């Protein structure tokens, strides 16, 4: 295992120390491993709390700040945070207007956030609403599975809903918006390599030099199928086609097109992929209203990319364009 870390058991704590030092505008609760806005809690503002396993940086801690999250809980690598963390985050962002939990759809995340919400309900008067993000079209969504994973739409949702909360919209409205964003977003990913969980010390799976995985998630799991390595043009097709056939993106205001790097794929390649995705969307008659290209939701040192399309309307685009000041995403201020 080749990583710039100290003891694998300390990686999350060490990285949080670095984050706190690099971003004095944030407040990091090292005991509970929660990253807070330095200027929170803000009275009368709905608090946005997210979190998940570590290893996806900048998601979620890097999205804490004005116009996005109020707090993010950092679990162990690929392990959802524990309820205590979520309780601490929820109480720490409570400005009297209630708290929204943004949870990616993984059994562990859902259960731990659920237990936290139960604890908060038992202990305090803070109103908590939970929205679960499930946008990965690689997973068959049926009664007989844990449902779709939450992947790239999470980043877009945290930005858009963060802007709405910043405007002072009430909890019910913010939660509705979050559900609307989740409904309108779809993602699909590919991996050229696996990744190495520090505590495991070796790659989660082996992928021969001439093969790639299609339909992977962001936890180093193998995908739905293994295919021969293909040019970016064909890879883009394998990612875009299932998204387009799952939901109609034509008409309206166009889409926010998000090409995400999984940690070990350089920006050069992401731009190559973006060019191919854009060409496919053009052919399909889907207009790109906004785009985001970069490593925003990673999977440790996995090489690969995910594509997310979010069907946008004027309201969503306005919220997307609103100022955001976080370590991971910043514009307008």
């Amino acid at each position, binding site marked *: 295992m080749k990583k710039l870390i100290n003891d694998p058991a300390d990686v999350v704590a060490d990285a949080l120390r670095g984050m706190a030092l690099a971003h004095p505008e944030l407040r990091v609760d090292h005991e509970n491993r929660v990253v807070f806005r330095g200027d929170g809690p803000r009275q009368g503002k709905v608090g946005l709390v997210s979190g998940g*396993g570590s290893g996806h940086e900048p998601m979620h801690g890097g999205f804490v700040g004005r116009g996005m999250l109020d707090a993010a809980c950092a*679990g*162990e*690598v*690929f*392990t*959802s*945070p*524990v*309820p*205590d963390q979520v309780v601490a985050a929820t109480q720490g962002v409570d400005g009297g207007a209630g708290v929204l939990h943004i949870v990616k759809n*993984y*059994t*562990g995340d859902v*259960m*731990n956030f*659920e*237990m936290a919400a139960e604890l908060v309900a038992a202990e305090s008067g803070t109103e908590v609403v939970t929205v679960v993000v499930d946008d990965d079209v*690689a*997973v*068959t969504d049926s009664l*007989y*599975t*844990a449902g779709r*994973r939450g992947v790239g739409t999470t980043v877009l949702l945290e930005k858009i809903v963060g802007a709405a909360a910043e405007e002072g919209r009430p909890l019910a409205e913010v939660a509705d918006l979050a559900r609307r964003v989740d409904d309108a977003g779809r993602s699909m990913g590919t991996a050229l390599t696996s990744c190495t*969980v520090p*505590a*495991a010390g070796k790659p*989660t*799976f082996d992928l021969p030099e001439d093969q790639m995985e299609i339909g992977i*998630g962001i*936890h*180093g*799991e*193998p995908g*739905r199928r293994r295919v021969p390595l293909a040019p970016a043009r064909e890879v883009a097709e394998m990612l875009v086609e299932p998204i387009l056939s799952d939901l109609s993106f034509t008409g309206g205001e166009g889409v926010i097109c998000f090409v995400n790097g999984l940690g070990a794929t350089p920006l050069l390649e992401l731009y190559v992929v973006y060019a191919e995705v854009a060409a496919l969307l053009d052919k399909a008659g889907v207009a790109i209203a906004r785009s985001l290209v970069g490593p925003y939701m990673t999977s440790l040192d996995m090489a690969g990319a995910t594509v997310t399309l979010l069907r946008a309307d004027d309201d969503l685009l306005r919220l997307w364009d609103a100022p955001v000041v976080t370590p991971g995403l910043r514009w307008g201020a």
Partner: protein
Amino acid sequence: MNPEELTAWLRRFAELVHEHRDELTALDSAIGDADHGANLDRGMTAVLAALQEAPPADAAALLKKTGATLVSKVGGASGPLYGTLFLRMAGAVDGGFAPALRAGFDGVLARGKAEPGDKTMVDALGPACDVLDAGGSVAEAAQAAADGRDATVPLVARKGRASYLGERSAGHADPGATSTALLLRAAAETLR
């Protein structure tokens, strides 16, 4: 049940988890995210430390502390599930091991909403409870759990992250069922 025998059970479970840490991680690598061994090892280390620091006075308090520690130290799917198992056992331990484990199992079902055959820890825990309820020994329950674990191999997962793999999840034992088989094996080795 007295706190001493339960402590012996938990100690042995912690030992087995530590010994099988890499195996559990390898199973979770095949169909999950490669953290199950680290998760349970971290959790049970914390449990032993908590019990050591302030030994609970009775069986119920001990199980409660165990469950609470797992909930607050493990995370992931196994944290809430194993945590709930012990927390619910605490409420039924006065009746003995069998009803306690059944209550714990019901907690796991309520929390995780998995059904038998979904390729989860339920497939090891359920058969063990059934054996105990039918008057079987703890050793027989441990065997049932081990058989349940083995029976997960051919299954296609329908719960947990292994379910994302679809057909590709078949051919591997479920990590959670494997750790649950260790839990019952520890019981067989330490409880009468």
